[in-house]
Every structure is written in C-alpha cells, then in structure tokens.
C-alpha cells in the first residue's frame, strides 16, 4: 500500500482521467446547485450552492474510499501520500478549501500536476494527498459481518 501511494515512479491518476472525473463531479454539483436555487428562496438556495462543493468533496474524499462519484466512475481515488490510506475528513476539508487557491491563478494550481513528479495539484500538496488508480490501491472493502451472538454463551 505504501509503495503504491508514495515514492517517485509510483502509479498516479493521469491528467485526462482526473479532468473527466472533475467534469462529472462538476455536473453533479451544478445540478444540485441549480435545483437548490430553483426550489428555495434566493438566499437559502445560493447558500446551498456555495456550501455544496466543499461539503461534497470533504464528505466523499474524506471517506474510506476517497472517491467522489466522478472519481468512482473513472476508477481513481484520493489517498494520503505517505500512507496510502484515506486522508480523512479533516484533510479532505483542507483539500477542498485549497481548491479555491488552485483555481485562483487561472486554474494553474490544477494544471500544476502536469509538471509535478508526484502528479500533485496545489491542493494535493497542502493536504498531503495524491490521486491514484483505484485498481492498484483499491478502497477498503467492508469487513465481514459480525458473527451472530451464541445464544448458549453466558456473559
């Protein structure tokens, strides 16, 4: 797991795959925002539209799978660069907020991955994350179900 996540030469999701995943997530978020604005009065609708992207990315990328719907569709996931595990919701929140900075200079922070040896964007660097193919570092599967309690066992 660590070798797959860290170190030069380790597998990383490529630019085209991340771009398509971004577009898919953008469509999902755009739909949610549009529905919110249409359903609710202006203030609440715009508040939902404003908070939806950081909430969306924090929730999904901080989950054990590290996958938004777009990333799941394209078979990639966000993992901690050092451990290969989920970055958790705290780092995912930092990562989603830092997307604003990545976009600030004409989206250069996103394009930085084309130059970076670890294929990290600026928000990846701040959060200590990398985006990897899910086939090489699969998300954790749910554990086996708990065995049914033995009715004859007395605590």
């Amino acid at each position, binding site marked *: 797991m660590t070798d797959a996540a860290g170190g030069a030469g380790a597998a990383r999701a490529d*630019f*085209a795959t991340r771009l398509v995943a971004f577009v898919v997530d953008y469509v999902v978020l755009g739909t949610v925002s549009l529905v919110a604005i249409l359903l609710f009065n202006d203030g609440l609708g715009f508040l939902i539209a404003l908070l939806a992207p950081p909430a969306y990315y924090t929730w999904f990328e901080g989950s054990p799978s590290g996958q938004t719907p777009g990333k799941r569709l394209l078979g990639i996931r966000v993992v901690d660069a050092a451990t290969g595990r989920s970055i958790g919701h705290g780092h995912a929140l930092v990562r989603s907020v830092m997307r604003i900075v990545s976009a600030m200079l*004409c*989206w*250069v922070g996103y394009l930085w991955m084309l*130059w970076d040896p670890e294929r990290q964007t600026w928000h990846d660097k701040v959060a200590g994350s990398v985006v990897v193919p899910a086939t090489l570092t699969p998300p954790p599967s749910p554990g086996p179900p708990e065995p049914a309690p033995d009715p004859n066992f007395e605590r």
Partner: protein
Amino acid sequence: MAAVGSTVGATVASFRATRVVELRELRVAGGLMLGAAAVRPLVGSPGLPCPLRTLTGIPCPFCGMTTSVTSTVWFDVRDAFAANPMGIVFVVFAVLLLLRRRWERVTVPVVIVPIAMAGMWVFELRRFDIL
C-alpha cells in the same frame, strides 16, 4: 558566515536544478487545449474567467491565455501576442508534441518556471494599466 555560505550554495543549486517532465500527459493536455481553442469561436464560449481578476481586479500571469491560444490557433498572431505572448509558445509546443510522438520526456531547468511566470505577470499588469 557558514550559514550564509550554505544559504547561497543552496540558492545557486536550486537555480541549477532541473526536472524531467514526462510528455505523454502534456501531449494529451495540449491536444485538448488545441481542440478547445479550435471550437471556441464556433460555439461563442467566453473562456474561463480568472478568479483573481474577478475578485480583485488584478490580473494573474495567465490572464489572456484563452484569447491568446484561440487567436494563435486561428492564425491571428497579433491579437494572440497582445493578449499574452506565452499563448503562442504554448500552441507551438502543443503542436510539436502532437507531431513528435517519439518525444517521451524533456529536462527543464526549474528556474524557468518562476522567470516565465514573472515575465507573464509583468506583461499582464502592464496590459491592464496596473504597472
């Protein structure tokens, strides 16, 4: 004195540093860029807004790139240069990458990035009469 020397040494070393850039993904990104630029005037897309300029009025080094790349693709080099000269360089590089499929990687001096961005930023600040 030793600390100053080591700092100077580290700075000089950083200027000499190079980075090996894999060209496969740049080739894909370049192709997408050329395709979008070719289609943009036909669909009337306004291009990507610069968040920094939208919020503060201050242009970033990459302002004008959409116009510059589009103009270059449509052979309007004068407009391209006026918007951002680096767009012409990007288009030429992207075309070369598509033509030279055997190029796999290139070694680039790291210092070229801050120098290029500084030059582009000065150009844009002058273009918007801030400098």
